[in-house]
């Protein structure tokens, strides 16, 4: 799926996505929208339709934001373009988090930082709760799905089962149901 008419410089791909990775605060859909604006609208690297087709699969594995970058890079310059886009997008966050991690693990015994982090901990849990509520309202549309969500919750919260195993079991059930529904049609 390479663009044969004009090969785009790998360095330009890298720099474009590094800029998105440095300035694209807001995460998830906000980044996808930014990639679309820059690559489709401003640079005309690919059409809206091609972009939408490509990212249709971006929510299956990994972060939606990174996947939209990888797809666009791959579309432009094959594997090298995909890697350049992915590395470019992740590099700024990687550097920022590395520095923050270093600061954190060097100074996290300071009482001032301890006090500040005591304020952020409950807020992080609040954020996770909001995500669960919003995703639940979007994803749970039937009794069967509610049951699936409840079973996963109980298995993890009360029975303390391994979340990776719960996810694996749920994936097997989800695949089985999908195949069963297709056969039934």
């Amino acid at each position: 799926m390479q663009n044969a008419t004009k090969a785009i410089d790998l360095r330009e791909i890298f720099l474009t996505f590094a800029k998105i990775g440095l300035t694209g605060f807001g995460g998830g859909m906000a980044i996808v929208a930014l990639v679309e604006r820059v690559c489709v609208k401003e640079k005309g690297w690919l059409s809206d339709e091609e972009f939408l087709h490509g990212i249709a699969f971006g929510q299956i594995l990994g972060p939606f934001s990174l996947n939209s970058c990888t797809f666009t890079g791959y579309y432009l310059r094959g594997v090298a373009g995909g890697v350049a886009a992915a590395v470019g997008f992740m590099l700024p966050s990687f550097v920022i988090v590395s520095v923050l991690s270093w600061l954190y693990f060097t100074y996290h015994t300071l009482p001032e930082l301890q006090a500040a982090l005591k304020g952020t901990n409950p807020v992080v849990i609040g954020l996770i709760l909001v995500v669960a509520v919003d995703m639940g309202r979007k994803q749970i549309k039937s009794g069967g799905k509610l049951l699936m969500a409840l079973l996963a919750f109980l298995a993890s919260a009360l029975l303390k089962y391994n979340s990776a195993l719960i996810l694996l079991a749920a994936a097997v059930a989800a695949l089985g149901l999908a195949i069963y529904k297709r056969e039934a049609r």
Partner: protein
Amino acid sequence: MAAMLTLAWVYLQIGMMFVGGGYVLIPLMHHLMVDHYKWLTMREFLDGLALSQLTPGPLAVLATFTGFRSAGFAGALLATICIFLPCTLFMMLVGRYYERLKRIDVIKQTLDNLMPAVVGLIAAAAWNLGAASLSNIKEFAILALGFVIFKFSKLSPMLVILGAGVVGFLIN
């Protein structure tokens, strides 16, 4: 060396289970990093989550933080590469075959069926982390305030986390 191989393998596995958006990483990584391998304490895990909200990157940069804890800068780099390797390869495969994949609705259907379980696991993560870390009424009040702000305002998580840090500093 053996420790680095273990690190790489653990993050590759997480990368392969990284379905339906970044938040599934919270229950997965909580289990692996805190309960199973004990690379982080629960407090450090929560602090790492707060830090990951301060960058434009996905929540998965939590891997950079936990990798840093296990093996310094090299660990951070290895963990970050390994957690993103599966989805990057997957997206390039999709990029190659997407014309044909459009017709395979079983994949989409499976993801659709799986998402409720992901929601259940995320809710359980909030439950498990809350049960283990919240100890007084002040913290429950901050949680409730955070919930309301995230739910009903468009404020960026980065600002809310920084604000919470200032509040925590002032009241503790």
